[in-house]
């Protein structure tokens, strides 16, 4: 599980986490992502980096489904603390091969207690 704790811009952590996630998927690992603290901003809809001259890499999150990465957990508390809701997040989906390739949402909003339980079930947690 990859823990994403930083805003997408300002430091390089979000981008480099995403790069490691894609490599892990290429190695056919069981990959899940958690977005907590300012990390929830990484998958907020409608990002625009024109004003800061940075690469807008938010589109890459839409590709995660194609890499069979479909377990994205977002901290409900972190969203609420920032005045955000599920409607502010990008509609990230994957195609379920066990259900005639039906498009299903990848993002699940969970409480920090649920997130804690998920983390305890992982072999490896990488924090960015």
């Amino acid at each position, binding site marked *: 599980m990859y823990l994403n704790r930083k805003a997408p811009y*300002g*430091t*390089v952590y979000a981008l480099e986490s995403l790069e490691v996630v894609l490599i892990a998927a290429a190695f056919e690992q069981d990959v899940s992502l958690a977005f907590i603290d300012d990390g929830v901003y990484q998958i907020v809809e409608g990002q625009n980096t024109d004003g*800061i*001259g*940075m690469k807008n890499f938010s589109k890459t999150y839409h590709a995660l489904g194609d890499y069979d990465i479909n377990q994205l957990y977002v901290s409900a508390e972190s969203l609420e603390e920032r005045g955000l809701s599920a409607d502010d997040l990008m509609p990230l989906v994957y195609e379920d091969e066990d259900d005639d390739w039906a498009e299903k949402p990848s993002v699940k909003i969970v409480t920090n207690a649920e997130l804690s339980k998920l983390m305890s079930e992982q072999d490896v947690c990488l924090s960015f």
Partner: protein
Amino acid sequence: MKISIQINEGPYQHQASDSAYQFAKAAIAKGHEIFRVFFYHDGVDNATRFTVPPQDDRHIVNNWASLDIKNAEGEPELVVCIAAALRRGLVDEAEAGKNGIEGNNIHPAFRISGLGQLIEAGIQSDRLVVFGD
């Protein structure tokens, strides 16, 4: 207004240098003078000409060079702290020679100098703006 800038963070890892560049560009466009930019701590890594970012990304070193910040004598006023640079593996031709090192990596738009340049920038400028944590 006469403005100097201090940058304390390395490129790509942290947005400080990018923000400082945007700030400097905007200030120049508004008719202000950038007296000097001083790169300190990990900020010295903004000055290596060996920087090769991916093609679709910004080139922070070239961005700074494009501002063409020079003094009346035509010397670059993108100033890199010598002590901070040497301990992080950045040398110009003169320092490479002195230390018996082959090659050099400071971009020609920058120059290496001492902390006195930072103090002087603070004295000479109306504002000294620091970027970094």
